[in-house]
């Protein structure tokens, strides 16, 4: 291996760049940007400002944070429901005034002051909610109006009554405790915020009302169609926001024991910024309370930090404005382009140097030399079926095949002109096999391993295996179960071709060429599924050897066949027995003369083989060209080859003009005939095999002639 090749292997096969794409598939990446911002903000201001983390400083700032968080939680809920609440500042101020006037001027108990504050919040919230939810006015304008009226109202009141409140001699220990005391080092506002956050979080994520809010925010129309009372839900979000603002106003009143013209001024902008910076979507439906809290901390640390560093309100507001602009841009661009970024990052081709293959060109004189015999096959079900990946015959000579519509179609012997839908499974039924009691088992692409009883009852056997410790994507699920075979003891050996792509994206797996194929076993006795082998380039066909002591499986993109021993000294190990074939192997099945049939899905081309050594070029190809333009192995020519126990190729059959059977994915020998299927084809082929045992059928060879 040259130095350049080593470098490519290291760069493309060892460095785990594919993990980036896998991480991006996770929903929690939405919170990554706000989280990083939070860490950076806290660390930056913590280092620049002395005593930032001292206990007193923390308690004072967290007291303020607690009040602010309450407001932000309310704002977040409104935004999750698809709205916006600009009136929070005004409600906050009015509630604070309500608490102060009740406590200081009317000398009522603290709990009455609390009720007055929350009632003020609820009333204003209800006005907003009624106008927006039921009258269906625009949220932005409506809350802007309530903001203006509310503030005007507050300013009139505060001018008239502030001196009265200040002169009051009323005092209360409870009032002072709420405003100044701590419980286990936590101030009351912080405890209140934590309590409310927990309740809101549980409501949003676990309770019906929360789900309704998210549904309404995600899509009003769909929510309405689903039977959700959209107007009521919208109404409730504003009431909730009013309530939290009211509570925050009360806490503010106890802390400062007074209110002034500036109380709650600009709070709506801060709350809005916090909610968006935290990662709540402006469009509604996406976000959480935790995101709101993250945003609250970011915004408060920034504004307080800037003040302590000596910057004026102008700078402060400028920073908030810029922060909001950035957050809104990221929010909108990210939501819109998230899937594109994922597409960009997900495909990470690897380097592979394929071994030189023997030629299959007609006239080349190699064992693989192709001919045109398969073009003479008689068509069964031409244009009636689409995508018979595998074909199989039962004891009555009826023919079964899967289709891309998720059905198992049965053609009736002897002439195979009549057909019926035997069963509807869904997914894309690929490999087929009959078990001892006549159940038809199928590997269903994108679904799992299924069993169909003779009386057509479809049953899922397994759809998952053990999860490996180091995987980022969920590799417990079976994305592309491909082919299976059954051992005499009933265990089902099957392949799952790739962990990274769903069954329908198998072409992308070929471009990437990453070795993530598996061989698995399902034990019907205890229903368990185990991974036997991992790390192959698209594991495909499986076939029990004639003596049942080992099995063969195909590794498609590596153009190899492996043998896996079930018993004997090498039990549990696999060996590559045929390598560097000129075509891509698919299913393998038994032949009547003690040898094996193997389908060629397509042929290697020198240009594609070369591209495997240029992973960066393949990556750019996936980025710069639409899928229809990508380079692909030549699957317009396939065929059938036969190999014996010594792994010699003893026969080939193909249709190299590709008229009838361009790509061949399976074949099944039955009573002197070979039945040929293709996942991209619209027919099953049937061709007489010269010299084959006309009494041999696979089902008898597996399970005996009795029953």
């Amino acid at each position, binding site marked *: 291996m040259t130095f350049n090749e080593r470098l490519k292997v290291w760069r493309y096969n060892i460095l785990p760049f594919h993990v980036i794409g896998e991480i991006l598939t996770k929903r929690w990446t939405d919170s990554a940007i706000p989280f990083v911002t939070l860490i950076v903000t806290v660390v930056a201001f913590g280092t620049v400002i002395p005593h930032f983390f001292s206990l007193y400083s923390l308690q004072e700032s967290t007291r303020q944070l607690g009040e602010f968080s309450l407001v932000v939680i309310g704002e977040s809920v409104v935004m999750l429901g698809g709205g916006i609440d600009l009136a929070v500042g005004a409600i906050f101020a009015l509630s604070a005034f309500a608490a102060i006037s009740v406590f200081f001027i009317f000398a009522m108990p603290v709990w009455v002051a609390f009720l007055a504050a929350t009632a003020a919040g609820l009333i204003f919230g209800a006005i907003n909610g009624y106008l927006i939810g039921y009258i269906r006015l625009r949220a932005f304008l409506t809350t802007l109006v309530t903001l203006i009226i509310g503030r005007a109202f507050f300013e009139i009141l505060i001018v008239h009554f502030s001196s009265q409140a200040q002169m009051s001699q009323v005092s209360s220990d409870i009032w002072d405790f709420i405003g100044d005391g701590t419980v286990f080092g936590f101030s009351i506002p912080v405890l209140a915020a934590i309590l409310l956050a927990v309740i809101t979080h549980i409501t949003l994520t676990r309770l019906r009302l929360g789900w309704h809010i998210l549904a309404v925010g995600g899509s009003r129309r769909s929510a309405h169609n689903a039977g959700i009372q959209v107007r009521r839900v919208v109404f409730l979000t504003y009431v909730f926001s009013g309530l939290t603002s009211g509570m925050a106003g009360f806490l503010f009143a106890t802390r400062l024991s007074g209110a002034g013209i500036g109380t709650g001024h600009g709070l709506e902008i801060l709350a809005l910024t916090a909610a968006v910076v935290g990662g709540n979507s402006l469009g509604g439906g996406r976000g959480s309370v935790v995101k709101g809290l993250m945003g609250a901390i970011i915004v408060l640390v920034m504004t307080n930090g800037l003040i302590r560093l000596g910057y004026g309100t102008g700078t402060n507001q400028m920073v908030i404005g810029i922060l909001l602009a950035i957050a809104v841009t990221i929010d909108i661009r990210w939501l819109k382009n998230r899937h*594109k970024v994922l597409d*960009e990052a997900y495909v990470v081709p690897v380097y592979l140097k394929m071994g030189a293959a023997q030629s*299959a*060109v007609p006239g080349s004189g190699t064992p693989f030399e*192709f001919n045109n015999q398969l073009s003479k096959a008689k068509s069964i079900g*031409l*244009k009636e079926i*689409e*995508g018979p990946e595998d074909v199989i015959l039962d004891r009555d000579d009826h023919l079964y095949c899967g289709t891309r519509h998720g059905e198992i179609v049965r053609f009736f012997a002897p002439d195979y002109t009549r057909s019926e839908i035997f069963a509807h499974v869904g997914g894309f039924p690929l490999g087929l096999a009959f078990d001892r009691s006549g159940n038809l088992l199928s590997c269903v692409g994108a679904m799992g391993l299924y069993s169909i009883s003779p009386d057509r009852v479809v049953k899922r056997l397994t759809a998952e295996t053990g999860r490996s410790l180091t995987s980022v994507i969920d590799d417990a699920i079976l994305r592309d179960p491909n082919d299976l075979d059954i051992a005499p003891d009933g265990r089902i050996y099957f392949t799952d071709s790739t962990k990274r792509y769903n069954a329908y994206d198998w*072409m992308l797996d070929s471009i990437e060429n990453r070795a993530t194929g598996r061989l698995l076993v399902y034990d019907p006795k205890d229903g368990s599924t185990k991974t036997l082998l991992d790390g192959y380039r698209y594991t495909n066909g499986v076939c029990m050897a004639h003596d049942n002591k080992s099995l063969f499986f195909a590794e498609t993109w590596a153009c190899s066949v492996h043998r896996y021993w079930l018993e004997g000294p090498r039990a549990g190990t696999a060996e590559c027995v045929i390598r560097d074939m000129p075509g891509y192997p698919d299913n393998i099945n038994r032949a009547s003369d003690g040898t094996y049939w193997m389908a060629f899905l*397509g*042929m290697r*081309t*020198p*240009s*594609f083989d*070369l*591209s495997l*050594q*240029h992973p960066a*070029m393949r990556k*750019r*190809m996936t*980025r*710069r*060209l*639409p*899928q*229809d*333009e*990508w*380079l*692909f*192995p*030549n*699957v*317009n*020519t396939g065929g059938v080859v036969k190999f014996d126990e010594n792994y010699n190729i003893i026969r080939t059959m193909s249709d*190299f003009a*590709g008229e*009838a059977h*361009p*790509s061949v994915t399976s074949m099944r020998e039955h009573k002197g005939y070979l039945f040929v299927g293709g996942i*991209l*084809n*619209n*027919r099953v082929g049937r061709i007489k095999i010269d010299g084959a045992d006309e009494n041999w059928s696979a089902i008898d060879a597996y399970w005996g002639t009795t029953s």
Partner: protein
Amino acid sequence: MIFDPILDLFRGKTITIPPLDGPFRANNTLEEAALFARLSSVDNLAVLNDRIIASSGDTLYAFDENGKAKMLQSYAANITALAVSPGNEWAVGLDTGELLIAGHQADLPPSVKCITALAFAQDGSLWMANGSTHHPPSAWVADLMEKNVSGSVWKGDPEGNNFRLISDKLAFPYGLLADNDGVVASESWRHRLVKIDGESGACRILVNHIPGYPSRLAPAPDGGAWLSVFAPRNRLIELVLQENAYRFDMMSRVPRDFWIAPALSSGRSFLEPLQCGSIKLMGIHKPWSPSRSCGMVVRLDAAMVPIDSFHSRANGTRHGTCSAVENGNRLFIAAKGDDALLTMNVSEAGGSQ
């Protein structure tokens, strides 16, 4: 979007090609055209005494009106260009770089090694296109994949002497059409037609963004012309042209027939490259799928503006159309990739506009 140039750095700039629309709108006319004659690698057509003559390998044939071929002359090397003078003498260029006019070897400048097209002007002077200084005409695909721009256009006297360089630094001039004050040349690797002034050699673009690789030009009686396009543009090929490491690796290690490059015919060997869209699905090869080869003949009006075109698409066979001439209200088309000489009625053919 204004951010696109910045984002392109991270996501890769999309490769686009001109669409088959307007005058280039795809149809099946060439596929349905009558077969005039079968002729192995039929290349350049011309009209001699109201008869069609065609080059095929190293031999020149003449056809009667029923498509019966008669050998006119055989040469020592493959014929790469053909033209008939106003005096009904024929000139041929050979793959060895020789030029024979009426049987006499012309005196060529030493840099001319790749004669791709010949055209006689009304005054009898001879225009000659030299496709490349690096390769003979038979190795055109290597010239394209090396991205050479070394073609030139020359003008000589009727006897083939005193050739004078009119314009150089052309990307494989592959067709010539002489007019009163100069020549129209098809610049194949740049997908365009240029007008070259006979005196100054100044180039002016006449047709840009042709959705294929243009080859020979022939005059039409109405003052317009016929342009043959021998292969379509293909986005994968355009990508490979920009992928230097892969391209040079491919040129040194992959047999030339199996390169990711335009071709005169395709789909005949399973060793050829295949693109996802060209996969036969449910027994169907989509006609609009990407292809390395196609058949296309374009009708140009007197101002050299494309007005109509005839096609053989990805699922067809009449590919590699290297030449088309009009004779007696009939159009004759050489589909080199299909070894076929086709014919169609000109007035019928004009119906698709």
